[in-house]
């Protein structure tokens, strides 16, 4: 029987949800507001929330100093490329683990996840040397491959979880109707798992977009994405908080917009199979 929810309880839940939401959003709001302040207002004590002289000077200066378009296009190529490549590899992997499991499937899944436990800096030198040998330092394709490999365990895990929710009998029926393996995955499994695949795509795109260790260490000019763009405004010496905030706002804006428009799919995918 469904539990009756009182109006007061509903109002309380809503208020708590709003407070938590605002708390989570506050640092982003603060960054956006600071980007419209002068450097002096950005460090004013006590801090000013809205009552300051709004200026676009920081954006103008950032645009003048940096080639934003190049950083943005690199971010799109690297994050998009690594996500698509990851999905292409992960879908068959997750399919085999979900529908044709072996005795070691769970061990393999755990082992894959354990690669995420190694601190990235631990393999910096080997990867760096490999990139030198292959001549792919400061190269977008190298970053596409590296970020794909980093995120692959998460992609496989997420897809495996979604695929497990799909009844195996449906695939069996397809097979009995004469579907090949490729057709089974492409025309039967994939359409049913679209919400899960979409949320996996989005989540990995965000992870790759925000990745700031390899993208800083393996790039200099040609392949540098928006993480390098932000880093170029970070400074322990001098007053550049407002410019740093403007650069950060410009770097997160595309992903915020993407997240805003795709939030329904994201929530649907993340809660896929949660209620039975």
């Amino acid at each position, binding site marked *: 029987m469904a539990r009756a929810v009182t109006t007061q309880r509903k109002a309380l839940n809503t208020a708590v949800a709003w407070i938590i939401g605002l708390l989570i959003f506050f640092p982003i709001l603060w960054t956006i507001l600071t980007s419209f302040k002068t450097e002096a207002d950005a460090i004013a004590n006590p801090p000013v929330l809205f009552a300051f002289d709004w200026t676009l000077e920081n954006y103008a200066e950032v645009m003048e100093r940096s080639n934003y378009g190049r950083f943005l296009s690199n971010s799109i190529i690297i994050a998009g490329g690594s996500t698509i490549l990851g999905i292409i590899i992960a879908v068959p992997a997750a399919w085999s683990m979900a529908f044709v499991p072996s005795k070691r499937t769970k061990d393999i899944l755990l082992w894959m996840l354990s690669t995420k436990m190694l601190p990235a800096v631990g393999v910096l030198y080997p990867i760096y040397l490999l990139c030198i040998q292959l001549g792919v330092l400061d190269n977008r394709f190298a970053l596409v491959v590296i970020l794909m490999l980093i995120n692959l365990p998460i992609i496989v895990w997420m897809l495996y979880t979604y695929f497990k929710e799909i009844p195996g009998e449906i695939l069996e029926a397809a097979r009995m109707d004469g579907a090949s393996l490729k057709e089974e995955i492409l025309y039967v499994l994939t359409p049913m798992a679209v919400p899960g695949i979409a949320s996996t795509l989005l989540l990995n795109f965000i992870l790759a977009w925000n990745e700031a260790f390899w993208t800083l260490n393996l790039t200099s000019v040609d392949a540098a994405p928006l993480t390098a763009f932000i880093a*170029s405004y970070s400074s322990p010496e001098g007053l550049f908080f407002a410019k740093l905030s403007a650069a950060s706002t410009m770097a997160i804006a595309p992903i915020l917009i993407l997240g805003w428009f795709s939030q329904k799919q994201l929530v649907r995918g993340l809660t896929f199979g949660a209620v039975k």
Partner: protein
Amino acid sequence: MSSKTLIRTTSALALCLTASAALAQDTTITIATVNNGDMIRMQGYTDQFTEATGIAVEWVTLEENVLRQRVTTDITTNGGQFDIMTIGMYETPIWGANGWLVPLDNLSEEYNVDDILPAMRGGLSHEGTLYAAPFYGESSMVMYRTDLMEAAGLEMPEAPTWQFIREAAAAMTDRENDINGICLRGKAGWGEGGAFITAMSNSFGARWFDMDWNAQFDTQPWLDTLTFFEGMMSESGPAGYATNGFTENLNLFNQGLCGMWIDATVAASFVTNPEDSEVADSVGFALAPDNGLGVRSNWLWAWALAIPAGTQQSDAALQFIEWATSSDYIELVAENEGWANVPPGARTSLYENPNYISVPFAQMTLDSILSADPNNSTVEPSPYVGIQFAAIPEFAGIASEVSQEFSAFYAGQQTVEEALANAQAITSEAMEAAGY
């Protein structure tokens, strides 16, 4: 000279110029640098260099610690990502000794290498060979509020002692109005609080190592240094000073919340800039304090441009370095932005220029730089070069950990004895492992 020879010489010269111009047109150099005011300003003038030489410049600007990690990875693996690296006085002699940098021994006559301040040249050389050209240099000094000092009925001597600084800080402190008598770095990190306390400890007679490379944190001068620092900051420092570094203190000072601030001389142009500072018209300067032991507590540092050995474009890189660290560049900045904004502390001629020496902090900056000697930085003899650091590869790692112990003491998380015992253990262990 015969007409034939003249024609031949002229033709050869024209051919060389055409060839070098053609070569230069296709040349792009990549420079890794830190994000600070002087470096950003230089980026703004790069077009003039490109116009004059045809050499295009790509900048990779990073925060200091990220830059350090980035360029270290590249130079140790011979990655060749950068044609010029911005490095400091700590890295230059070590990297030069390892053969990772191109020696700057073929600078042109017009560049006038002898004009570089001797302290800077010495700190950026290894065995007499210059490996990096200073873009700007700095020491540390006392920056103080003249109005608060006057209100406290005190007069700042040109060369104060630590005791005077402590008494003045207590007299200037006004807790009701949030005014702290003194703001100093307590933040963990070898380049942050670690640099300050090491320079301060020199004036108390402390040193990092004895002549046999044994750690010295179990000695009385270190106990005196830390006890004095913590006592003074508790009396007159800002709340949470254990997490304050350069930027935090700069912000506090510019907002009028510090009576005194002892830090990099390069900050003088920030605190006297009315656009950023609320107290720009009431700032005075003095030498960093001492304890009458013959060593002051000021440091010496330079951000310098060096050419990594792995570059394919060392000629173009050298051309850029000559341009960016020349007297002509200083004049270019002075012409466009005023003398107070030129990169300081690198060239002797700058301090002979009447236009510059009339800038309020110029003479004190020069005096501070000249009073710093990286080869004799401690009261007792020490085996290392460097004032706020010891120029050995192990230092950065050790000092980062040691400064964390000190910051934990400032924050009240452990006693001074515990902090020093931990520092002694960390340093001894690391030095033993490194084979000293």
